[in-house]
């Protein structure tokens, strides 16, 4: 596997200035030294609890915020403001969590879907634009007659389809899906997940799939990265991560997922973590997870563990995990 990844993220840092007084301010390290690659046609799942920085990773790699440090390399080119970023913005798109607030209530569905091609001027004639809108609506299972309606006339699942059609308008290669199904009802979730999978197969898309629901992420991803307080603590293939989770945080996270099976749920041994996630303004020294970790030793407080590969394709940042088979 010497394929060059479509997207490489190296040492991405995103700090926000938080004012703590009239003239004082401090950094909130939302994303701290995050690196990963995504191969073309793959799906990387990014999981973690609220406030762990997963959404910020998505937004800062899209350069919606200017990253504090680190680089994002897309298709061999380093992103920087200018023509590279302009073309990246056409080739990469986003699907947002809330299908209610992410669609402009004053625009017709046709205009919402056509906005990316309007912005990037990707058509010659009005007819071509309308044809493209009809094609896109058809692609996501809506009918072209619905183009003249407004977003409020649609249900949550249909709105998310509109959001996906908009993301597909500029024929992107890469899509960041930021919690695309968490606002939807269970019976609708499966429709949208299946559609995302079909579109990926049909259009050769690459996804970064951000979600907090581990069952959904496991279902859709080839590889999964687990984040805790702005850092990736473990990264492995989806099957490997579930069969053999190494980081104590991943282990407790997986054990906490409710299993929809009464017999298995009863057998399940939960690793219940003590306490809450620390404030990202006061990240503990050394390993950020040590304050809640059931296996913490004094050495965990000394230095921040690096993400290292412990077996082929399986990286973890915990000093207590020995390297095997590498």
């Amino acid at each position, binding site marked *: 596997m010497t394929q060059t990844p479509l997207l490489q993220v190296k040492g991405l840092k995103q700090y926000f200035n938080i004012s703590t007084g009239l003239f004082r301010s401090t950094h909130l390290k939302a994303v701290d030294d995050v690196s990963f690659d995504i191969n073309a046609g793959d799906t990387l799942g990014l999981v973690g609890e609220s406030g762990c920085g997963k959404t910020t990773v998505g937004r800062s790699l899209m350069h919606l915020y200017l990253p504090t440090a680190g680089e994002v390399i897309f298709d061999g080119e380093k992103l920087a403001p200018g023509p590279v970023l302009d073309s990246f913005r056409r080739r990469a798109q986003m699907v947002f969590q809330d299908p209610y607030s992410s669609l402009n209530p004053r625009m017709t569905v046709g205009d919402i879907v056509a906005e990316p091609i309007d912005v990037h001027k990707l058509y010659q004639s009005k007819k071509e634009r309308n044809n493209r809108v009809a094609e896109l609506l058809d692609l996501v299972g809506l009918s072209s007659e619905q183009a003249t309606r407004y977003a409020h006339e649609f*249900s949550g699942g249909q709105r998310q389809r509109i959001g996906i059609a908009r993301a597909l308008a500029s024929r992107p290669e890469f899509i960041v899906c930021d919690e695309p199904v968490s606002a939807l009802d*269970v019976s609708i979730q499966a429709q949208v*997940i299946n559609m995302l999978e079909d579109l990926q197969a049909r259009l050769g898309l690459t996804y970064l799939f951000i979600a907090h629901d581990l069952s959904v992420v496991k279902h859709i991803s080839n590889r999964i990265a687990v984040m805790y307080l702005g850092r990736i603590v473990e990264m492995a293939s989806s099957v490997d991560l579930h069969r053999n989770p190494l980081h104590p945080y991943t282990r407790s996270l997986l054990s906490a997922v409710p299993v929809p099976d*009464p017999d298995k749920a009863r057998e*399940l041994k939960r690793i219940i973590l003590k306490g809450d996630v620390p404030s990202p303004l006061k990240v503990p020294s050394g390993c950020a997870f040590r304050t809640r970790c059931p296996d913490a030793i004094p050495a965990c407080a000394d230095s921040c563990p690096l993400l290292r590969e412990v077996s082929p394709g399986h990286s973890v940042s915990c000093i207590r995990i020995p390297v095997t088979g590498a």
Partner: protein
Amino acid sequence: MENILEVKGLKTSFYTPSGVVPAVGGVSFQLKKGSVLGIVGESGSGKSVTAYSILQILTPPGRIDSGSVKFNGQELVGLSEKEMRKIRGNKISIIFQDPMTSLNPVFTIGNQLIETILLHTSRTKVEAHKRALEMLSMVGINDPERRMHQYPYELSGGMRQRVMIAMALVCEPEILIADEPTTALDVTIQAQILELMTELQHRLGMAIILITHDLGVVAGMCDEVIVMYAGHLVERGAASQIFYQPKHEYTKGLMRSIPRIEKDEKERLIPISGTPVDMLLLPKGCAFAPRCERAMKICLEEKPQEYWINGYNHLASCWRNVKEGTLAPEVPGKRPMIQLKEESV
């Protein structure tokens, strides 16, 4: 085991300017003493309204049209507000989904807890303070003395939900209604709260009605499960029956559509097609029929009757059970059994 709560033919509607929304359209169930009953369904299926109707905390334009709610044999529907107040909080308590909006932001945690205690019991202020501390440590809050002086915004989501639980359990109620208690929380915090609820349930011997859309939460907690769709009870039974032998097409569809984390091989999800039903334009027949793959002609024309399956603890209201099920006896206003042929639409 004896039933602590009996709900019969409960109907609640919202009289909105655009029409009458039959949020709960005739629901019957029993809650056994000390057991955990789960109510699952999608948003708008009427699960929360059912709970609010039990406690009569509906906001206008919603009101109970008919039906009966019996708590320990005492009829609650029709009680005066004054009498209901003796039930609420004392005998039946509720915790809500979002702990931030259910706590008052301008009073300290201690203030709100003590107020509850003073309101419901005849304790003095000093005793109430002691009791509040006791409750906070019971729900696993460290350093309760300090927390008493803090405001809700100073606590994390999980902490706030613990405070809500403490507040709900102050009078040691016989029934705790938990309306999506962990939906706003992260999985690791959710696990903490669910464990706490289970532990307290065993310790205090109360019954719990757990309202959720998460089938995983239900599987881990509940003895019995009710599945609701469009204001109707579509299936009711022991948790194992609902999960392993679902008899209603909607329940079957739900079970197929959730991704399973415990499975290694990747399987394609089987979604339920269509969109949730518009409560203002309910279909004539079964509300689920327009989305049901196995709908028959009768499903579109007649509301399904409730059938008992395998004895008398598993109930499904689906025409598909006409052959193996026996007609449920206790449903009010039911029609005589109709002969039907299996015809697909």
